[in-house]
């Protein structure tokens, strides 16, 4: 047979989100709480800078690692979380944080390596691990523990033997964040058992109570961590596809070796937008964050009022309530009967079963209607 996908490919199933996407697309009256991206557009100043760069004819490749000005601004920006990286040697600009995750997996995972990932989690990590030839090691987290990763959970899953841990907090789909002491505990586990960490911190700026703690700032962790972030969530720039990786010089050299042959450089127009975003869009980010925080509290209090168990999500723009039954059936009926799209928790891993991912990256008006409909559907059940 021709064009037969290889074994790595063949073992990766199609995304479970696809089905809901198709169901939701069938009708045009759906209020969607199933979206994993901001409802805001990128700040106008950033868009404007992108347009200007096009007018100026800035349509060539940039250096592999990204424009020097952008790397310097990224290094300055990252300092807010205590991350200190040299813009010349320790920053790599990528095509979305997604590219950075893929690069890190392909660079640091050898065939047969065990790669731990906590669940429920963003749907791309496990396939990414498989594409890289690694063996995913699922580490369940639960609502009882606010979906925080603990050394106990890591040990219970046998992660002492893991080579790499993929860590994503604030988390998609749960909205969970980890406190400094919780991060410290995981860091100690990683140091003790020589586990490298790929830390996807794309939602770091969307931390609503307390401050985001990067695991790379913990003792012994800088040399074993790749920190990944980007402009998609905080700056509402998903479609511009711009992210970055931070790490020790040698590790970033290695990432760049894959990047320079596969991507050459991140989109130039997006880099100009990102430079302006970091220079002048701090206020816009604060406005968006304030709006998300209001919606977060609104959604959480509505779940509480309707008697749906939902732990206090403190990051990203998701709540992860328990629907009190089969999440897939619930989501499907909610969509067909009430026209509200949410994503069933099981899509994000076995231990997400019985939960729903509810994105509050939607205007307050729609959110109010949607929560009312969820309430009437839930109470009628």
């Amino acid at each position, binding site marked *: 047979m021709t064009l037969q996908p290889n074994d790595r490919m063949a073992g990766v199933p199609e*995304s479970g989100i696809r089905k809901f*996407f198709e169901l939701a697309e069938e009708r045009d009256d*759906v209020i969607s709480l199933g*979206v994993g991206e901001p409802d805001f557009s990128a700040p106008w100043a950033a868009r404007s800078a992108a347009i200007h760069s096009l007018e100026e004819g800035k349509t060539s490749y940039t250096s592999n690692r990204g424009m020097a000005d952008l790397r310097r601004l990224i290094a300055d920006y990252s300092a807010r979380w205590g991350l200190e990286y040299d813009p010349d040697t320790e920053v790599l600009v990528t095509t979305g944080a997604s590219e950075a995750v893929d690069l890190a997996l392909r660079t640091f995972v050898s065939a047969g390596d065990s790669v731990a990932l906590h669940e429920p989690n963003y749907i*791309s990590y496990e396939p990414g691990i498989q594409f890289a030839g690694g063996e995913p090691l699922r580490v369940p987290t639960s609502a009882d523990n606010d979906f925080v990763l603990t050394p106990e959970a890591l040990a219970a899953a046998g992660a002492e033997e893991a080579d790499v841990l993929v860590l994503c907090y604030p988390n998609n789909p749960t909205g969970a964040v980890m406190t400094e002491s919780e991060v410290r505990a995981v860091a100690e586990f990683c140091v003790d058992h020589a586990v490298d960490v790929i830390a996807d911190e794309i939602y770091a700026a969307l931390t609503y109570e307390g401050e985001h703690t990067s695991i790379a700032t913990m003792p012994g962790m800088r040399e074993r961590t790749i920190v990944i972030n980007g402009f998609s969530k905080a700056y509402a720039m998903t479609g511009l596809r711009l992210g970055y990786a931070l790490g020790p010089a040698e590790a970033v050299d290695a990432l760049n070796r894959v990047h320079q042959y596969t991507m050459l450089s991140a989109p130039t127009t997006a880099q100009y937008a990102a430079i302006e975003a970091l220079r002048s869009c701090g206020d816009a980010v604060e406005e968006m964050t304030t709006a998300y925080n209001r919606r977060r*509290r609104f959604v959480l*209090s509505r779940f509480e009022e309707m008697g749906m168990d939902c732990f206090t999500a403190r990051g990203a723009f998701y709540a992860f309530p328990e629907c009190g039954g089969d999440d897939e059936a619930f989501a499907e009926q909610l969509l067909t009967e009430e026209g509200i799209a949410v994503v069933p928790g099981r899509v994000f891993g076995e231990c997400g079963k019985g939960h729903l991912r509810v994105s509050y990256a939607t205007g307050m008006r729609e959110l109010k209607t949607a929560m009312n409909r969820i309430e009437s559907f839930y109470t009628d059940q």
Partner: protein
Amino acid sequence: MDAKRELLALLSTDARESTEDIARQLGIDADRVEELLDELEAEGTVKGYQAVVDWENTDDQRVAAFVELNVELDRETGYEEIADRIARFSEVESLRLVSGDYDFAIEVTGESMQDVSQFISNQIAPIPEITQTVTHFIMETYKEAGIDFGDRDGDDRLSVSP
């Protein structure tokens, strides 16, 4: 941010939210929201709650103009005194003292251009301290009170995404 500042920020975005919905969004009790609203009003921080209307969408005849006013002060009359006289006219929607080539910037509304012109020439220009008026009729409103009338950024996201 303390609750009062958060409330103020929320009201500046949407003052029509119910007390219960405001309470949910700020994570405080509805009673506390009412208390804070009372405080904000009593101390004169919140002056009112108004809709932002695109009058073009109504059948009402409505004409608005920005008017620049130059004034000459003397020992007895300061900006405050002049402002006080101008502000009392219900036709005057806003009144501000500004830096630059003129002193006051006012916004005036009426049913027709003639209506507005007559108001300026009969009521404003004759005020003794006013030395000059320049009237700019508003042709089109694109944005007001932070609200873009064009609705330029539509939601084109996929309905479900990871």
